[in-house]
């Protein structure tokens, strides 16, 4: 069972279909699977439902799949960095389901852990509660949210070993670990693929059971959205 594929297009081979649900890791442009997004664009797959905290920016990240109109619907918590998104949405060319960020994270974690539904106080008395069951526990009000499980998850990690164990780096971790657990097929792209003996068993963030395919991306853009510095004293 060799999990390592030579590149992103070959890793996507046989797992991409029109109308599928795809989870894509990252927070803004931090920790996004750059090469798998490009390769997914190049498959030409249409009518995708994409679960991702954000929708990239114009010309980068998931913005690339918006340009080609491959996305039918997005589940996100914040899409404010993308003008094309706004335009498509206002024209009715794109469906959008907002999820509070923590609810989105928990829905993905739940889907991966075999939990079909859970209660949360986030969103009670807001539009997020519309159409959802409300229920009291210990006199407090909560709403029912459901687990999410996708056909494909594309995630970005720092290092993988050949067994699919993943390690993330700093805040590039974000949504990637949960998404890796919540899809029929999970493909990880990483900056380095190492021998299993090089990753410490106590320090693995995503155990290999969750990862079916691995590629090494080379030459990451890692675009910074808001470069912010302080003056040297």
């Amino acid at each position, binding site marked *: 069972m060799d999990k390592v594929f030579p590149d992103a297009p070959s890793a996507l081979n046989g797992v991409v279909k029109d109308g599928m649900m795809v989870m894509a890791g990252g*927070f*803004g*442009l*931090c*920790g996004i699977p750059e090469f798998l997004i490009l390769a997914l664009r190049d498959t030409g797959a249409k009518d995708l439902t994409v679960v991702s*905290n954000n929708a990239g920016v114009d010309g980068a990240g998931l913005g690339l799949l918006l340009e080609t109109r491959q996305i039918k619907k997005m589940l*996100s*918590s*914040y*899409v*404010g*960095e993308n003008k094309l998104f*706004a335009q498509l*949405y*206002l024209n009715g060319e794109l469906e959008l389901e*907002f999820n*509070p*960020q*923590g*609810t*989105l*994270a*928990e829905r*993905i*974690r739940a889907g991966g852990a075999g939990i079909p539904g859970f209660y*949360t*106080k*986030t*969103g*009670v*008395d*807001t*539009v*997020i509660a519309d159409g959802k069951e409300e229920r009291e526990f210990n006199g407090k009000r909560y709403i029912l949210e459901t687990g999410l499980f996708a056909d494909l998850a594309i995630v970005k990690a*720092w290092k993988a070993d050949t067994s699919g164990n993943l390690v*993330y*780096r*700093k*805040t*590039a*971790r*974000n*949504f*990637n*670990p*949960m998404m890796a657990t919540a899809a029929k097929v999970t493909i990880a792209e990483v900056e380095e693929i190492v021998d299993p003996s090089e990753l410490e068993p106590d320090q693995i*963030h995503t155990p290999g059971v969750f990862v079916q395919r691995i590629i090494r991306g080379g030459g990451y853009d*890692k*675009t*910074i*959205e*808001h*470069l*912010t*510095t*302080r003056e*040297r004293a």
Partner: protein
Amino acid sequence: MAWTREQMAQRAAREFRDGYYVNLGIGIPTMVANYIPEGMTVTLQSENGMLGMGPFPYPGDEDPDLINAGKQTITELADSSYFDSATSFGMIRGGHIDLSILGAMQVAQNGDLANWMIPGKMVKGMGGAMDLVAGVKQVVIIMDHNARDGSPKLLKECNLPLTGAGVVDLVISDVGVFEIGGSGLVLTELADGVTVDEARKRTDADFSVAAEIAA
């Protein structure tokens, strides 16, 4: 005369207590980190998956893998830790964060908060705001007391879609400080040079005035 943004941030920092874990929103709330009192340990959480957020990096030291929830480059501290988004919001939803300081479009006298959406305009999304106000122990709002057109933002009732109902504990504006509690909305501090009359004129909400100020 009224408080500047810096003065509002300074006042908000007085809500810090030693050992607090705090989440700061984008904008003026971010500035509050500059006023942590000397000798006090306050740990900043960033909901994209970090505890122990450090200051912005020196030019050239920025790391694209290290950003805050506003997508700004930041730095780590000796005791920082990173975790995934589910763990981060478990921390928030589970009541482990002591204080959240956020901006607002509207606050109602019962503590309702609207800070994520203006119907008819493009909607950007709530990000983590709904989770923060639902889960964090104490919610402090820093905002301009009035909108650019002069209309009041501290209202009898919000007319924008809510971020959370009855979630705000304290409002700090350029006019002063308002507490929201069992006895409704109470003006507890006035900015330099602002009178109770002026505060009333610029506010739609009903509020009482704390004894210290009324005197």
